[in-house]
């Protein structure tokens, strides 16, 4: 049923911004899977900017595609051109972030991880590792980011179950490593005892790890989100305790597969493919780090 | 006296134009070692321009420039410095935020082998130099904290003691007191005797005759004469400066001129106890309708500040100002204009829009009266056309960009904008500066017409001729205070100079 397309398909992809590693990895995955399925992928970079991405999607919408896949930078900013493509019968696959609340737009399918689950699962791993008691800190991403909101929710739902765990601080660092560094310098001063820390992504976690090392406070267990190669390396070296995979390859590769299935296999939204596909990844610890790295190398997760 | 020796500096056929204005036309100039060379000429004759060419400020000019017998071309002031040429510019050019000591060594602070500035040595040497020049001031004070006159002296001292072998002084005495001028002359003579060559520009002919060995006269961008000071007289110099065409206008001012008995109308402007820190002290006077009030004084005597206060651009520290009997405290120039005051400032650059056509320059001040919201270009042009014809502005094309007009015609445009709806009080700063004889005459006639229409007019000038040719009553401003009034009595250029 699904498989390599006979005639070459033209697909347009856009994601939040290629400046972000997670997005850059997704681009490679999409191109890799595209080659396997005979799909020619054209990229429209969102440049981490709502206005620029909107212009790019407007331009995308005035061209002809077999299918498109989009990760929105700003929720709700792409509705009009996306609707135009849907109206033109182009299957639109929504990746990672909502293009708009699902009642406003009828995308072919929404492939996304469950941020709340990711936050909860890595927090759970941290809490277990410190024996269910101690002091923890969460460093959030940008408060406006839905991913960050989900991850925070997951974190809170888990720590609530541990009466002996005290949350010291949850200030946002806006995904910014320099702000993370500043915050953590303050924490290390303010709190003589910190047992574990949860960061909304690995970049912030690694920046904080650097600060902890400089302050000789390497006893803090660090958890992150994304499980990008540098974080997997840090986990296997013990610099980080755990991270949870936000499966960029699975989402972007999945978008290729879903697109081909729609065009070639005639899959219909809601029947052949669910409206909402949850693409969660596992928690990565020392135990499964090497395997995770291999899977990422081959764009499998 | 300098015959026989070859000059250290020799300029041939120097021509220099700014845009359309020719500031210098084929000028020859020679300077010998160990001479003080006086330079005189009317405003705008090109004296400063020639000196700036020598000091490397204007690298672009045509003509031959010989230094020590070798053809030279300065690309910048640095080249001139390196060649031993120092200049005191007409406008104060110091660094007010630096200390006195640094200003004395401006651009040439003493350093040790590591390249570090030796502050203590610099302060000591600056102090020594200044006290040799009779200035007693802590070398580590910030220069900007000192009075203007002292700043000027320090700038002069810097150049005099910089070791330059050619020193140019462009109107250095304008802000100095007589004893300071005296000390300056002594020092100049000493430097001359040590072999330094000095160019000295001044509008004070007596000073020039006293201190210089040779005098050169400029007129209208040309060199008119060069004589040994011993061989000439003040009268001869003035005649050379002013020229034949000027006889009718200028000549009489050396003789007494009888100011008319006041037959003027009501008081339009009443100024009482006006003061502005450092510039004006307790200035009180009145200006009447149908009268031209001349205010004469040396450069820096407070005239410019006074004109700014009358037009709301500067706010006085104290004193009152009343127009037509109503007390005014102008918060802006717009407020002054609404109250019926108009100002034509001394600088053309400051009062005209060079990139805009003539008619917009004329209409700008009366736009409110021509149009409520939308512009009425046809009316604007018609009004402008009338003024252009009345004032004989050439070419009489109101759509031409102002920058295309000659200086004198630009000056007329500046006047033209106040003529359609005349103000109550017209303040003119240096209204004839840079004008040729014919244009000056035109301006005099315009001003007289306006007086006849019942305006109160104030003419402020540093040129005695201007004041004498226009005013019905003359006030002399000196160091910010009114020191003398000439009304209904005999006055002459000499008397004015004496009072100032």
């Amino acid at each position: 049923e699904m498989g390599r397309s006979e005639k070459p398909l033209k697909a347009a992809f856009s994601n939040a911004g290629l400046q972000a590693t997670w997005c850059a990895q997704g681009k490679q995955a999409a191109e890799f899977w595209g080659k396997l399925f005979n799909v020619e992928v054209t990229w429209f970079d969102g440049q981490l900017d709502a206005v620029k991405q909107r212009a790019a999607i407007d331009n995308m919408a005035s061209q002809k595609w077999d299918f498109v896949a989009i990760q929105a930078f700003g929720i709700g900013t792409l509705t009009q051109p996306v609707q135009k493509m849907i109206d033109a019968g182009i299957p639109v696959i929504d990746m990672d972030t909502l293009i708009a609340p699902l009642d406003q737009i009828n995308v072919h399918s929404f492939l996304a991880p469950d941020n709340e689950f990711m936050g909860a699962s890595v927090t759970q791993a941290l809490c277990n590792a410190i024996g269910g008691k101690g002091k923890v800190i969460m460093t959030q991403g940008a408060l406006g980011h839905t991913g960050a909101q989900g991850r925070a929710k997951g974190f809170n739902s888990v720590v609530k179950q541990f009466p002996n765990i005290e949350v010291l601080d949850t200030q946002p660092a806006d995904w910014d490593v320099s702000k993370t560094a500043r915050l953590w310098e303050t924490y290390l001063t303010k709190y003589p005892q910190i047992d574990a820390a949860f960061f909304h992504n690995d970049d912030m976690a690694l920046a904080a790890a650097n600060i902890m090392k400089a302050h000789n406070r390497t006893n803090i267990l660090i958890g992150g989100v994304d499980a990008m190669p540098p974080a997997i390396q840090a986990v296997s070296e013990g610099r980080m305790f755990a991270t949870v995979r936000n499966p960029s390859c699975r989402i972007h590769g999945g978008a290729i597969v879903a697109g081909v299935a729609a065009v070639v296999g005639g899959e219909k939204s809601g029947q052949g493919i669910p409206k909402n596909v949850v693409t969660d990844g596992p928690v990565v610890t020392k135990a499964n780090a090497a395997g995770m790295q291999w899977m990422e190398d081959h764009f499998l997760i | 006296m300098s015959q026989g020796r070859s000059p250290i500096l020799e300029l041939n056929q120097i021509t220099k134009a700014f845009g359309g204005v020719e500031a210098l036309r084929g000028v020859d100039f020679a300077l010998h070692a160990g001479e003080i060379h006086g330079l005189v000429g009317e405003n705008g004759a090109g004296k400063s321009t020639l000196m700036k060419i020598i000091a490397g400020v204007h690298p672009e000019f045509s003509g031959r420039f010989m230094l020590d017998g070798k053809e030279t071309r300065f690309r910048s002031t640095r080249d001139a410095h390196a060649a031993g040429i120092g200049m005191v510019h007409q406008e104060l050019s110091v660094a007010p935020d630096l200390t006195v000591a640094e200003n004395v060594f401006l651009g040439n602070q003493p350093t040790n082998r590591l390249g570090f500035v030796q502050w203590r040595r610099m302060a000591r040497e600056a102090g020594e130099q200044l006290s040799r020049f009779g200035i007693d001031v802590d070398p580590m004070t910030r220069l900007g904290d000192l009075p203007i006159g002292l700043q000027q002296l320090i700038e002069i001292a810097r150049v005099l003691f910089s070791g330059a072998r050619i020193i140019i002084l462009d109107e250095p005495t304008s802000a100095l007191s007589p004893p300071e001028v005296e000390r300056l002359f002594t020092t100049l003579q000493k430097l001359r005797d040590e072999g330094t060559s000095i160019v000295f520009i001044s509008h004070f002919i007596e000073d020039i005759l006293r201190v210089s060995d040779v005098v050169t006269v400029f007129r209208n961008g040309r060199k008119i004469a060069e004589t040994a000071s011993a061989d000439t007289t003040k009268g001869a110099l003035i005649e050379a400066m002013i020229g034949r065409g000027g006889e009718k206008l200028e000549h009489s001012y050396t003789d007494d001129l009888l100011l008319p008995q006041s037959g003027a109308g009501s008081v339009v402007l009443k100024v009482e106890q006006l003061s502005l820190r450092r510039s004006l002290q307790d200035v009180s006077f009145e200006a009447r309708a149908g009268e031209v009030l001349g205010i004469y004084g040396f450069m820096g005597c407070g005239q410019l500040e006074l004109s700014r206060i009358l037009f709301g651009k500067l706010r006085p520290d104290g004193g009152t100002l009343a127009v037509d009997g109503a007390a005014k405290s102008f918060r802006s120039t717009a407020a002054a204009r609404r109250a019926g005051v108009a100002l034509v400032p001394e600088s053309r650059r400051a009062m005209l829009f060079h990139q805009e056509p003539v008619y917009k320059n004329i209409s700008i001040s009366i736009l409110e009266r021509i149009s409520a919201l939308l512009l009425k270009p046809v009316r604007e042009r018609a009004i402008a056309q009338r003024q252009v014809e009345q004032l004989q502005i050439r070419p009489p094309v109101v759509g031409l960009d102002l920058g295309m007009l000659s200086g004198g015609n630009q000056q007329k445009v500046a006047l033209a904008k106040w003529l359609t709806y005349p103000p109550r009080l017209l303040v003119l700063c240096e209204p004839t500066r840079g004008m040729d004889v014919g244009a000056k005459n035109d301006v005099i006639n315009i001003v007289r017409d306006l007086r006849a229409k019942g305006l109160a007019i104030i003419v402020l000038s540093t040129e005695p001729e201007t004041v004498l040719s226009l005013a019905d009553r003359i006030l002399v401003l000196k160091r910010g205070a009114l020191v003398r009034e000439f009304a209904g009595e005999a006055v002459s250029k000499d008397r004015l100079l004496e009072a100032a």
Partner: protein
Amino acid sequence: MASSDSATAPADHKRPRGLASFLRSQMRNIAPFLTLIFLSAFFAIASPSFATIDNVGNILTQVSVTGIIAVGLTFVILCAEIDLSIASIANVTGIAVAYFTLQESYVNIANVPMPGFAAILLALALCALLGLVNALGLTIIGIPSFIMTLAMMQIAAGVSALLVRGQIAYKVPPLITTLGSGSIGGISWIVIVAAVMLLGGHLVLTYTRFGRYVYMVGGNREAAEFAGLNVKLILGSVMVISAVCSGIGGMLGVAHFGSAQQNEFDTYLLDSIAAVVVGGTSLFGGRGGIGNTIVGLFVLGVLNNGLDHVNIDSFLKILIRGLILLAALIINVYAQRLREQAAD
């Protein structure tokens, strides 16, 4: 002798001054126009999808918000000032209009719903107020506009943050929704609004007394003051105009993009400045106008749009944009210089 000079001179001006001299004097306007034609031709050849009716529509909508903001900025730059708070004020105004509109239940903002016209008026009042702060800082306190508006950029961002608190709002009053995202007869309303505002700006600058004053203040501020103009009032007004144009752009932008959120409009700062300057309006004031801004808008619009139609390395595009911006600036400065020479 003097009289013979001036007798012959007038004839001089009536003599035609030669095509070369005319072209040089028009360089400021010609250079950006040539850039535009060159870019359009290049992309039309490089990509079949570029020169289509549909894509012209895209370019028009894409430059609309920038265009609306650039109207006010043109006034500011004509006065030889700058406004760095435009994007931030656009953002806060868009957020404010959504803040005063009833949102769907899933939007988690403690907002204050009001009737549509009240929301619009309040949002406009907010941007005018921020513009007024800029105006007072510039004219009364005397903070240079560059640094005053830099501080305002932060302040407006702070107000935005307080209003949305990291959330996203979707609803704006119906009028704004229509103007921002509706279309009539195949033409987007936002394009029409931008066109009307640009036209309005042009008319004000060209045919009103205030517009004349703006040019005069920019051309020679000192002379304007000596002519008895209220220079501070004019400068203050252009700062307020700029803020209000930004606010309108922000409100329509929110409707156009479909949501209001923090930092949504950051790009408009550079884009608007670039549009005005690239179009040939002089940074030193007094020269240029809305016509130039329109050309500048299209130069940037075509550049951004065209780069999406050709397959260039995404990472290279950032550099290419920077270099073209620099090239346009150099042309701007040289064109000014040529013009000045032509005037001599």
